[in-house]
């Protein structure tokens, strides 16, 4: 099991960086192109909840754990106080995530909004 961590500004512009890291690691696990595309869609979908469309003051800490043929990605938003973050997935998001990941969730356990997703190579 290996872990890679990155911290990026909580802006939609940096989601692409997160996507690229996810794709790079998935490629190491020999995911197919379709699986990599799915993973990127999942990363997009979940990160967008954290950054909002306008971005927020603060940063996202993303941790990628690879283990065999499985990648787990967790993301936590560390924001300036007073920012409202929606943490209930829309019906559409739930459907998208259930299609492109093994499992995915979004919650706000201790004040910081956080997501987690798992995808395994088929």
């Amino acid at each position, binding site marked *: 099991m290996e872990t890679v961590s990155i911290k990026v500004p909580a802006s939609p512009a940096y989601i*692409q960086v997160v*996507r*690229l890291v996810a*794709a*790079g690691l998935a*490629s190491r696990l*020999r*995911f*197919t*192109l*379709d*699986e*990599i*595309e*799915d993973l*990127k*869609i999942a990363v*997009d*979908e979940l990160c*967008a909840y954290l950054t*909002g*469309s306008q971005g927020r003051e603060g940063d996202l800490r993303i941790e990628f754990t690879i283990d065999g043929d499985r990648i787990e990605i967790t993301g936590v938003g560390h924001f300036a106080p007073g920012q409202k973050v929606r943490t209930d997935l*829309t*019906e*559409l998001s739930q*459907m*998208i995530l259930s*299609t492109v990941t093994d499992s995915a969730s979004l919650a706000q356990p201790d004040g910081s909004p956080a997501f987690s997703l798992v995808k395994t190579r088929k």
Partner: protein
Amino acid sequence: MATDRATLTKDEVRELFRLYIGAADEEEKLQHRSKLVNQHIGLVEFLARRFRNRGEPLEDLVQVGTIGLLKAIDRFDLDREVEFSTYATPTIVGELKRHFRDKGWAVRVPRRLQELHLELTKVVSHLGQELGRSPTVEEIAKAAGATEEEVLEGLEIAQAYNFTSIDAPIDAGDGGSTSFAEQLGAEDEHLENLEYRASLAPEMQKLPEREQQILYLRFFKGQTQSEIADRLGISQMHVSRLLNRTLIQLREALEE
């Protein structure tokens, strides 16, 4: 566009060029130039038509080609033995090609990556057929003669390519206009579509037909991007791009 299209003989064209080059003032010069443009607009249209299946309106292409024509008029040298139309053709075609190279991308992308993108599009579809499954990045890199990092970069950069909407009118060749969507052959999915439309945000209904279809096939039917690409007769990378863009649109619409 030109309404008084002239049909001059070769000698009359040369005479017009003589007048244009020797014009006394700017106004006279412009008059002669517009006659030269009208005389050759048919050539521009002819050449522009060769590019019309690339998803841009013919009218826009004629405009681009006309810029090439103006450049050729400015540079034409009467001492040359060649006819003007022969001289102008490569300039007009060059302008059209440059247009596709530079303007097709919503974001300026370095040429090296544009070429890589084109190469990847080919390799991905070829490998998909050969392997009977979606290829890995390593396989794509090997086939494209690129590094894995370049492939990942190339796939990501593909999102910047601005494809014309499938519902944009295309030139049907018989003077009538139709849209790409209407020309797509597909099973009738209207009944099934009704079901999912009813349960989802109305924003989804506002999407163009093809975007709806891709969303439906991917998330309601569970087809992979490669399968959807095969079915719609477009590349997997194009499916990826449309899907990404559509999801961003939906997300923004839902957030409002």
